[in-house]
């Protein structure tokens, strides 16, 4: 498939009708968290869009981010690769191996100098280059070489975005985030452990559609997906406002689906789109399944105290972090936290 063909031409060649294209544009608007009124603009832009070359680098990671990407439903990974991007290098998905794979990376860089996207999952170890190498090249050297001619770099997952689990205390490999190393290019962070698959594809689709990167927050995350907390969009929020909390995982509150704040939910301080985009083709998300949010899309989530400690008792700087929550909710939350602390102290004492 030619990289010079526009998306409109590709879909037309595949026999996709205009109605089909309008459907594609409607789901793209939904994916980009844009209002449906933007569909005509998206249609116009997508019709003339050309597939960008994408080079995906994997460093200190667990492949969970790629596993997540393969679960994307809109667009599907196959649809993304065949229609929207030219995925020229990806360890898990490419057919080439060894020298041929590295040659493909170099060829993509040369052919698309200044215009290709580099996606990275995993953190980069600075402690010793030998901690993680690919084809005899250290992660640091491969990143710097590949990013040099890129239009932008996208850090996929909390390891690439913030150091993640490899960077957790005591950080034995000296792991750092991509933004710590790349300062002369735009770097978009798409954190999560793993990130929501449609958020990964949305960043690529945004670049394809409008030729530009999304608006970012202070942590480099796209505002469209990380602009609100899990708590703000949680369907259990009304229970928080009413002061109705699950105290344990098997009490009446848990059975009735009450707020999980006292069981350690990090929803109030976690910015992500799980509460609306959900997982597994929109089936549910952790809170809907009865488990507190772990806060995996926030910097250093692994080192912020116990997952099951209420926000106000974990080492999060609770007061300031909770400032965005509704005043009434904060008051209720603080009261709940105090009760929880007393309960925990009682448990420890009795134990």
């Amino acid at each position, binding site marked *: 498939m030619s990289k010079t063909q526009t998306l409109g031409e590709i879909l037309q060649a595949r026999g*996709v*009708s*205009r*109605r*089909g294209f*309008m*459907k*594609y544009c*409607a*789901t793209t*608007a*939904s994916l980009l*968290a844009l*209002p*449906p*009124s933007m569909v005509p603009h998206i249609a116009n832009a997508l019709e003339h869009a050309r597939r960008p070359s994408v080079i995906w680098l994997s460093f200190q990671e667990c492949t969970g981010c790629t596993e997540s990407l393969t679960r994307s*439903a*809109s*667009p*599907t990974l196959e*649809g993304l690769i065949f229609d929207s991007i030219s995925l020229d290098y990806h360890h898990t998905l490419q057919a080439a191996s060894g020298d041929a794979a590295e040659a493909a990376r170099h060829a993509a860089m040369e052919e698309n100098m200044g215009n290709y996207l580099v996606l990275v999952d995993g953190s980069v170890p600075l402690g010793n280059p030998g901690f993680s190498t690919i084809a005899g090249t250290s992660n640091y050297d491969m990143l710097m070489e590949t990013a040099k001619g890129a239009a932008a770099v996208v850090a996929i997952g909390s390891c690439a975005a913030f150091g993640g689990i490899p960077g957790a205390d005591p950080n034995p490999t000296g792991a750092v985030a991509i933004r710590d190393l790349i300062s002369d290019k735009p770097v978009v962070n798409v954190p999560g452990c793993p990130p929501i698959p449609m958020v990964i594809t949305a960043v690529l689709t945004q670049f394809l559609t409008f030729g530009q990167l999304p608006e970012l927050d202070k942590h480099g995350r796209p505002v469209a997906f990380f602009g609100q907390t899990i708590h703000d*969009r*949680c*369907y*259990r*929020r*009304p229970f928080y406002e009413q002061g109705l909390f699950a105290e344990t995982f098997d009490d009446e509150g848990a059975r*009735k*689906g009450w707020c999980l704040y006292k069981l350690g939910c990090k929803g109030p301080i976690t910015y992500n789109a799980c*509460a*609306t*985009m959900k997982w597994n*083709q*929109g*089936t*549910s998300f952790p809170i*809907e399944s009865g488990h507190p949010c772990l806060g995996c899309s926030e910097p250093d989530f692994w080192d912020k105290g116990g997952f099951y400690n209420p926000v106000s008792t974990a080492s999060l700087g609770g007061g300031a972090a909770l400032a965005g929550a509704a005043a009434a909710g904060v008051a209720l939350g603080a009261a709940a936290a105090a009760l929880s602390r007393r309960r925990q102290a009682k448990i420890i004492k009795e134990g």
Partner: protein
Amino acid sequence: MTSLDNINVQIHQSHGNVEPLLNEVMHAIDRLLEAEEPTVIDLASLPFGPGELERLEERLGRGELRAELDALGASHIRETAYPGVWWLEHRNTAGDVVGRYLEITRTPEILMSQDADILAGRARLGEMLELKEARQ
């Protein structure tokens, strides 16, 4: 058991997200009647609790018209029990739901024949007639 759908789960609890949306729909109907202004509500952007989407669908009910579109996967388009309020569900080629919308309009745009398709169809019809003429 072959799928998650077969697990017998009954949800009786409401999380209070359906009523406000129904009010929004009513205001959208007013805008359509008074100013011919259509509204599209992307249901994927709303924080529904377990069972609430199904409850919304049930409350809106089914009207007298429904259509199926086969383009990049199936799409189901049907008017609800409230004329002018349409429920649209888009699926991909694997059958996964990729978009759910409420459209408050006289006819959803996607049901209209598009100029590009009409032109392509006209060209195909022309070619077929020429071919038939050449054979005779």
